């Protein structure tokens, strides 16, 4: 579905005359492959290049070196630009700055309108996508009156209405409260499972990646770790080195392990931790 080969991107800093004075390598030789229908999470602290990478998938940024293919289309191919953007939709961080319409349903219809979809079909798609994110009863509302989580779900519906095969979410929950965060992540998981949409979730909240099929960890423009959430989170020391948090349950298990309790690696959720501790207790 998405394949990157030696993807490199430099931000140029220009002076007043438009001359490049300095370069900052934001993405540095990234190789990555995401299969169709997968739920992939990309982790990394601020400035690790994860958002820059995300913007390549939507062809908002074009690689300085290397190539990125979306569904077999090279993002540098200008003739396919709109196909790529239709195929790989993007949800951004700030919910206010990506809603174009003044009524929820108008905003969801914006994408299909741009694609030249016939009117009847637009209405069908709008209804379908709002249903999929659970926002159908808010269709006539003004986005200004929705909560952050609801706005993000509208934004997701706006992307879904373009019938993409893949959604890239660039820190969609960074500006939300815990409740909104949960509702957005649950929506994304549902789309991934029920509609087989490929999801690329960029985040720095560890709790959100537990359910992912695979996790990539980025640091300083490079992919430094990859694997299933279990594989990643069993390396607590390495994550700490990268200035990343680990889920609370994992951390507790890790500290207990260090103090000599025989717990298995890679405990991710509270439930798992409780279960393992109970098992341990019954053995004692």
């Amino acid at each position: 579905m998405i394949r990157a080969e030696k993807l490199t991107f430099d931000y140029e800093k220009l002076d007043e005359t438009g001359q490049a004075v300095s370069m900052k390598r934001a993405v540095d030789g990234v190789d990555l492959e995401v299969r169709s229908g997968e739920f992939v999470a990309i982790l990394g602290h601020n400035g690790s290049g994860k958002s820059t990478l995300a913007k390549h998938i939507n062809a908002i940024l074009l690689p300085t070196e290397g190539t990125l293919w979306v569904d077999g289309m090279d993002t540098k191919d200008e003739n396919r630009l709109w196909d790529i953007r239709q195929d790989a939709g993007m949800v951004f961080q700030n919910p206010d700055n990506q809603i174009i319409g003044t009524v929820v349903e108008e905003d969801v219809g914006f994408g299909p309108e741009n694609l030249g979809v016939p009117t009847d079909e637009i209405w069908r798609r709008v209804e379908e996508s709002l249903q999929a994110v659970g926002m159908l009863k808010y269709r006539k509302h003004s986005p200004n009156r929705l909560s952050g989580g609801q706005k993000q779900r509208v934004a997701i519906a706006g992307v879904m209405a373009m019938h993409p095969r893949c959604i890239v979410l660039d820190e969609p929950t960074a500006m939300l409260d815990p409740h909104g965060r949960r509702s957005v992540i649950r929506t994304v998981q549902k789309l991934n499972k029920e509609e087989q949409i490929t999801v690329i979730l960029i985040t720095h909240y560890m709790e959100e990646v537990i359910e992912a099929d695979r996790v990539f960890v980025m640091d300083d423009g490079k992919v430094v770790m990859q694997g299933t959430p279990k594989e990643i989170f069993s390396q607590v020391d390495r994550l700490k080195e990268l200035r990343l948090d680990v889920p609370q349950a994992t951390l507790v298990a890790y500290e207990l392990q260090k103090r000599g309790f025989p717990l298995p690696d890679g405990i991710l959720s509270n439930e798992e931790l409780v279960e393992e501790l109970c098992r341990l207790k019954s053995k004692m």
Partner: protein
Amino acid sequence: MIRDITLGQYYPAKSILHELDPRVKLAATMIFVISLFVARSPVGYGLATIFLVLVIRMSKVPFRFMTKGLKSIIMLLMITVAFNLFLVDGNTLWRLGFLRITDKGVQTAVMVGIRLIYLILGSSVMTLTTTPNDLTDGLEKAMEPLKKFYIPLGPLKKFRIPVHDMAMIMSIALRFIPILLEETDKIMKAQMARGADFESGNLIQKAKAMVPLLAPLFLSAFRRAMDLALAMEARCYRGGEGRTKMKPLKYESRDRTAYGVILGYFLIVTAIERGVQIYGWIVALPGRWMAVYQWILSFL
């Protein structure tokens, strides 16, 4: 206080006005505004009042939403009224030093005041019952004939009026008015919390106090604009070409009725104003005839 500006804020409700074609509402607002300038007599104003009240009742928008829009123009209103009150010539009613109020002054001041208030109310009805998208769709469609005109810039380049782009710019501006107002409020409070003073001092000091408010506001507006442009492009926006409409504009019977109603209203107002004039003319008629008669007689 800064959130009180309602212009450009859609009020969702179910009413006939909400469902009307935006072109009808645009035209009706324009005609209503013209009618305000046609009306000179109390009868004309009475008609405009009745019309406005009926329309506001029909819109199902709470009246206080409309009056909120008025608060923002209160300064302008007061200045206009004061100028008319003190500067129009006529029979002096009251005098204090160089200030004097004349009967004509009072008349024009009241008239201009009412005119301004009705103007804001009338356009508020339109913006409150029409989503900005509808509004710009209407504008775009109404301006469509303009697309045919162009200014040739050399043999290959033509400057066409960017009707779609203009409409899009307007709709986005309208969408962001409430957001930016909220932001202004937030920045103001943040600066006030750190000791900024927006209230006291003379005009120049007040203007200076606005700098720490405006600079961050502009900065954030630009950042928002960048984000929004990105989001629009990510959703395949590429101008008006090849774009379909979710809500294509089509006149229906209620739109034709509405055109009829507004035109009827306008004709009645004009007729009444004319009538008032003609009545005056007829009243003056015998005198005129006498003058003509005497003029003819003078030749004999």
